[in-house]
């Protein structure tokens, strides 16, 4: 939970107000200066009117060099970041040929499969030679190879469901499946902090969408009771079906969802559940099977489980795992399956090899080692950050750690100072997070060694002091701990 200090909130609002005022002034000057030489093509309406791109032009462009940094190597634990310079105040950025080797605390490389791996890469190269890099066709027209069917069975077995279906891109999986499952007359209840792909899918389906408070099973129950009793909006007919959509790990908070309680509520009210495990599959749980394993929920209870291969498996694409009938139905109707190019065969082979390593079927225990490593790394890093006084969100065992920044000036300052000390971090602001709650997000990987983590902590501590984001210094934490101990005694 975010504990926003009052003074910080005031200063943040003040900063945004100042930036907004400056932006408006600059816009006014631009309008005055542009009046004589109007560059608008005669008769065509401009692509962006007025305030539509105000945020992009006046606020985002100031810090544009912190986003979209190109790299010149695999997104492993150390990356080569390409230096960029700008001649016109950050409006356009040009690449140089200098590279800086930086510690990578930003990529979703949870199990370290991003770089060339001793088991996966030879097999991927072999499949490239046999099946070529692309299939040039959709799945139903001759884009299904033996590898695709093998991966579907393997993914289903890994997750614990009877059958699975593959898609070429994670985002498209959500946007195309939700409309196929539910339409007008249905109800979708989604968590308030769900990802953009789910929001798009829900909107595209035509069903009514309601939101429940983030991770609050009691509010979900309230919403369900109210909606079932009222029925459809104007006609009050009963709903055709209700789907509740949640995520395993929320990527901007690092929190796990309260799966057992929410499953109990959904079972009681006969709602279907859809679990998006984009960040949690492969990264948490004793054998990497995701949030169901960690929280002790039977995968047969969740109706539809979705996941992506981009994060823990170092490849691309997504999957949906559910009962055999649902998968057969989806194969017949889902537009992404009928019109989208099938996954590239080497990428499929990468996932197959990665899953085999995780399950230990390659004959070594590297999978178990990686899983233990990422768990240790995440817990160690998080406890150290807490001790230093940063405000860190997220639960135990989750490899995603947002550090709160709040103030808009601290976002580029933090990012640039860290880069100077050779640590690459990711900072996120509006519109991905609420306006006042900007943060820096750290993603830990199994390929980070203890020395890497120590270096990262050192740099973060120095930069944190410089920028001033240690909102909860150690003294108060210690005195709280002592007070608790005294109470127990």
């Amino acid at each position: 939970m975010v504990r926003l200090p009052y003074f910080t909130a005031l200063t943040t609002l003040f900063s945004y107000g100042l930036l907004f005022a400056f932006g408006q002034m600059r816009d006014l000057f631009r309008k005055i200066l542009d009046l004589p030489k109007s560059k608008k093509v005669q008769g065509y309406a401009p692509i962006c009117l007025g305030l539509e791109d105000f945020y992009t032009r006046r606020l985002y462009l100031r810090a544009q060099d912190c986003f979209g940094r190109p790299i010149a190597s695999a997104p492993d634990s150390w990356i080569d970041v390409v230096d960029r310079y700008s001649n016109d105040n950050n409006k356009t950025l040009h690449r140089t040929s200098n590279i800086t080797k930086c510690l990578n605390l930003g990529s979703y490389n949870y199990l370290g499969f991003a770089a060339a791996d001793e088991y996966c890469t030879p097999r991927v190269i072999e499949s490239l030679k046999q099946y070529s890099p692309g299939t040039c066709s959709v799945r139903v027209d001759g884009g299904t190879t033996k590898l695709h069917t093998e991966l579907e069975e393997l993914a289903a077995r890994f997750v614990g469901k009877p059958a699975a279906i593959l898609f070429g891109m994670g985002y498209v999986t959500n946007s195309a499946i939700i409309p196929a499952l539910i339409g007008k007359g249905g109800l979708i209840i989604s968590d308030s902090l769900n990802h953009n792909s789910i929001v798009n899918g829900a909107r595209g389906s035509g069903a009514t969408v309601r939101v429940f408070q983030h991770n609050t099973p009691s509010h979900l129950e309230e919403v369900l009771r109210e909606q079932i009793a009222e029925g459809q909006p104007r006609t009050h007919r009963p709903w055709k079906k209700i789907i509740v959509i949640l995520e395993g790990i929320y990527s901007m908070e690092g929190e796990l969802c309260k799966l057992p309680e929410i499953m109990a509520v959904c079972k009681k009210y006969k709602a279907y559940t859809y679990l998006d495990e984009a960040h949690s599959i492969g990264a948490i749980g004793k054998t990497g099977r995701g949030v169901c394993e960690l929280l002790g929920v039977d995968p047969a209870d969740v109706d539809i489980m979705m996941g992506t291969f981009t994060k823990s498996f170092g490849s691309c694409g997504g999957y949906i795992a559910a009962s055999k009938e649902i998968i057969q139905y989806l194969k017949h109707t889902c537009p992404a399956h009928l019109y989208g190019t099938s996954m590239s065969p080497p990428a499929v082979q990468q996932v197959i090899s990665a899953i085999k390593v995780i399950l230990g079927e390659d004959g070594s225990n590297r999978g178990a080692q990686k899983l233990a490593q990422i768990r240790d790394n995440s817990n160690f890093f998080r406890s150290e950050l807490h001790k230093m006084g940063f405000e860190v969100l997220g639960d135990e065992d989750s490899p995603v750690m947002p550090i709160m920044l709040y103030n808009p000036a601290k976002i580029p300052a933090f990012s640039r100072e860290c880069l100077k000390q050779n640590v690459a971090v990711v900072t996120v602001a509006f519109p991905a997070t609420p306006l006042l709650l900007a943060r820096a997000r750290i993603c830990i990987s199994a390929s980070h060694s203890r020395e890497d983590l120590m270096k990262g902590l050192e740099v973060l501590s120095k930069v944190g002091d410089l920028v001033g984001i240690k909102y909860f210094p150690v003294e108060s934490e210690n005195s709280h701990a002592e007070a608790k101990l005294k109470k127990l005694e």
Partner: protein
Amino acid sequence: MAVAVANMTTAALDWVSVKFNAPLAGMVVFGVHIHGHLVVEVLLIAVILFQLSRKSYKPPKKPLTEKEIDDLCDEWAPEPLHPPITEEMLSEPPTLESAAGPHTIIDGKEVVNFASANYLGLIGHEKINDSCIGSLEKYGVGSCGPRGFYGTIDVHLDCEARISKFLGTPDSILYSYGISTIFSVIPAFCKKGDIIVVDEGVHWAVQNGLYLSRSTIVYFKHNDMSSLKSTLEKVTRGNRRAEKIRRYIVVEAIYQNSGQIAPLDEIIRLKEKYLFRVVLDESHSFGVLGSSGRGLAEHYGVPVEKIDIITAGMGNALATDGGFCTGSVRVVDHQD
């Protein structure tokens, strides 16, 4: 008789008014002479105020009790998530056992492949395979992050520069999946209230993008230029707000569903006459049409600057996956 009744009523009224007036006859309150009718008016106002202040009768609202909600929840039964499985849903597509080149192996038999969109025959090309192997060893398979967060690899930027150089446009931007290109580009440019004129025969991804953009959509008959002309005429005639609304025409170069080619020179002529912007989807024509493969613009000899937005999925002639979008400078900046 009637006269007598009338006389009596007037006498009675006179008596009443004299009685009323008498006590107040000489009264002066705050410099205002009090007359009888003032008393009646004050009484009337008092009655009106009294009525207004009373609560009107509304039937009492009875919210559902907890028990009733419980009963409703128990009674409600959802439809199953999927409709019953029919025979045709059980059919499986053919499974390939080798690369999807001109000849491929299915079930151990060698067959001629008419199903893949391998237009230039680049599947299985030696040079492509070698450079892919090289980049696999250097960069791994996935980018492990979106473009904004260290997912931009220098080869992405090189590819974008190459594509724009090839087509002759200022810049381009890459997407990671073929069909998602067009249904991300359309909502990025077309918002609620804009007008889009579309061909009837566009494929699903374009239709989805149009639905997501929530603009006003007008269809014209498939590949029929006279129908396009009359639609544009109808849409712009008498519309005084037309200056402020953004207007787009969305067509495909080669239509996926029918295989016809859109007559670009006609479309450009109409667009310049009626002041629309053109969005052209070149998924099936990039690398195919034109003497050097530059697409529809080269095929018709139209300068590429006249087309505002060109998108293409690379899953066809380029034997890979993904898509790109290119156009004038302002267009690409906005996409970023």
